[in-house]
């Protein structure tokens, strides 16, 4: 592999050049624009780029590294579980994205915390809601960002033959640079390039696997190892009952519809884009990427003596692919991690530079160029904070950190973002729901042994109930709104 390190460096530096060039080109979108240019790409995304950035952000490095490991250990239940992200994204795009886009456009919202605040009222309470939503978003997504920086650093280190810290610093520096240059436009365009690479990577792996072994032979050999690998009597690791795996579908739907770093993409579409045009692209992209965990089942058949299931993908790359091709596929796996990391970085920096700033200083009259400078500065600051957190954070499991950050934020946002779309509560309900979701989901994940889907879903349930209950209890007769009706503020 050492002889191919020069090739890996060439691939990496070439990809860096292209990503930075895209960042530079997309900076034209935000030049002379107001805050919406940086925050929602000037509402300029078309169906293909929009679909590309949704899928690339949703399918993180987990799909390429963690999921094949789970499929190696637990079998086809992981292939099914991971697949549910594809239909969930399609459903979210078809049935929620248009509502959120139109509503945010009416209100003039450029971020999800701002949307949450504007939907629930105005004045001091709205500032509180926006500030709290921004702070929680920053804290939880920084945790997730830390895990992505570490993941990308670890993979890059072994690929390039350098230390973890050097690798992580190199990767995050480039992400910071192009995100600073072009904001969400740069993130979306680079995501689209990267999801194309991820799709090619998935295709190459499937071609290699199914030219080596037919699907029926793969099934027969897995059955010979352990029938539970194909016909599990539980949904482990998703839950004890056979049906638990289907909980991934609502989880993944809420993941796409509610999480600020996913849902902000719905705000960035051109007003003329029809959501079914987006879904047409999301469907094949999602289905293609959902094939990747099959690698884990293939390695189980062909290389059954792995010491650790997590090594399924590295073992596959080093054993079954030519080193040059393995280098290219590794670049595409890095793309999967970077496309999530850049979206997280853009969202946390927007929460700090826009949401927190406007919550604290609502009467600020900063010029567009000054606001752009502030937005860009926060990208650099929080990117470096994420890197420092990676250096000094305790060595938690990477996937668990990701779930703690994203799953808990899901429970925080479900009431104010999703429930409010068909039953609007008030600012008190939104605040109470966010804090309840934070405490409930965080406690389940930190202090109990419940499954990674179940903890956030319990948090979602508690948060939703509190959202409705507190809104009802604190509603004055004049402020009460009929179900499904909105008052523009």
């Amino acid at each position: 592999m050492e002889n191919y390190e020069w090739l890996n460096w060439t691939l990496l530096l070439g990809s860096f050049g292209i990503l930075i060039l895209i960042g530079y080109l997309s900076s034209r979108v935000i030049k002379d624009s107001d805050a919406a240019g940086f925050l929602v790409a000037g509402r300029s995304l078309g169906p293909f780029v929009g679909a590309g950035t949704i899928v690339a952000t949703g399918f993180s490095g987990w799909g390429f590294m963690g999921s094949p490991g789970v499929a190696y250990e637990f079998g086809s239940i992981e292939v099914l579980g991971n697949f549910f992200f594809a239909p969930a994204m399609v459903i979210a795009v078809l049935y929620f994205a248009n509502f959120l886009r139109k509503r945010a456009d009416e209100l003039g919202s450029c971020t999800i915390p701002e949307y949450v605040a504007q939907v629930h009222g105005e004045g001091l309470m709205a500032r509180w809601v926006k500030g709290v939503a921004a702070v929680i978003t920053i804290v939880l997504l920084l945790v997730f960002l830390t895990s992505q920086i570490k993941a990308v650093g670890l993979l890059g280190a072994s690929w390039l033959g350098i230390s973890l810290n050097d690798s992580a610093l190199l990767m995050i520096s480039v992400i910071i640079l192009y995100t600073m240059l072009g904001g969400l436009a740069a993130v979306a365009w680079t995501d689209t390039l990267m999801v194309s690479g991820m799709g090619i990577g998935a295709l190459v792996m499937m071609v290699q696997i199914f030219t080596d072994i037919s699907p029926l032979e793969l099934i027969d050999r897995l059955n010979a190892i352990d029938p539970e690998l194909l016909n599990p009597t539980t949904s482990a690791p998703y839950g004890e009952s056979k049906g638990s795996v289907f909980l991934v579908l609502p989880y993944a739907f809420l993941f796409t519809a509610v999480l600020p770093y996913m849902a902000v993409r719905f705000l960035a579409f051109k007003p003329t884009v029809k959501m079914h045009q987006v879904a047409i692209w999301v469907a094949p992209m999602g289905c293609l990427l959902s094939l990747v965990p099959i690698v884990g089942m293939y390695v189980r058949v062909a290389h059954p003596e792995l010491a650790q299931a997590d090594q399924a993908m590295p073992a596959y790359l080093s054993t079954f692919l030519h080193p040059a091709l393995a280098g290219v596929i590794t670049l595409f796996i890095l793309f999967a991690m970077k496309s999530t990391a850049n979206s997280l970085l853009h969202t946390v920096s927007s929460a700090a530079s826009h949401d927190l700033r406007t919550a604290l200083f609502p009467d600020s009259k900063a010029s567009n160029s000054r606001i752009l400078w502030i937005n860009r500065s926060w990208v650099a600051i929080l990117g470096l904070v994420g890197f420092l957190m990676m250096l000094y954070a305790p060595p938690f499991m990477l996937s668990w950190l990701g779930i703690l950050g994203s799953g808990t934020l899901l429970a925080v946002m479900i009431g104010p973002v999703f429930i409010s779309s068909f039953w609007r509560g008030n600012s008190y309900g939104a605040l109470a729901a966010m804090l309840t979701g934070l405490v409930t989901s965080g406690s389940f994940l930190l202090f109990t042994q419940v499954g990674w889907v179940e903890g956030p879903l319990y948090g979602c349930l508690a948060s939703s109930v509190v959202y409705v209950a507190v809104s009802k209890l604190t509603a004055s007769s004049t402020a009460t709104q009929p179900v499904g009706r909105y008052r523009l503020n």
Partner: protein
Amino acid sequence: MLFESWTMEWFSYLNAAIIGWAVLVYCYREFVKRDADC
């Protein structure tokens, strides 16, 4: 039973349903609705 595996059966049918839906909508928009719009 397809593949003799309930998980792979669900995986295959759902995949086919989503891809089929995308192809149908694409064909409808490209060949039916566009002609009607002309």
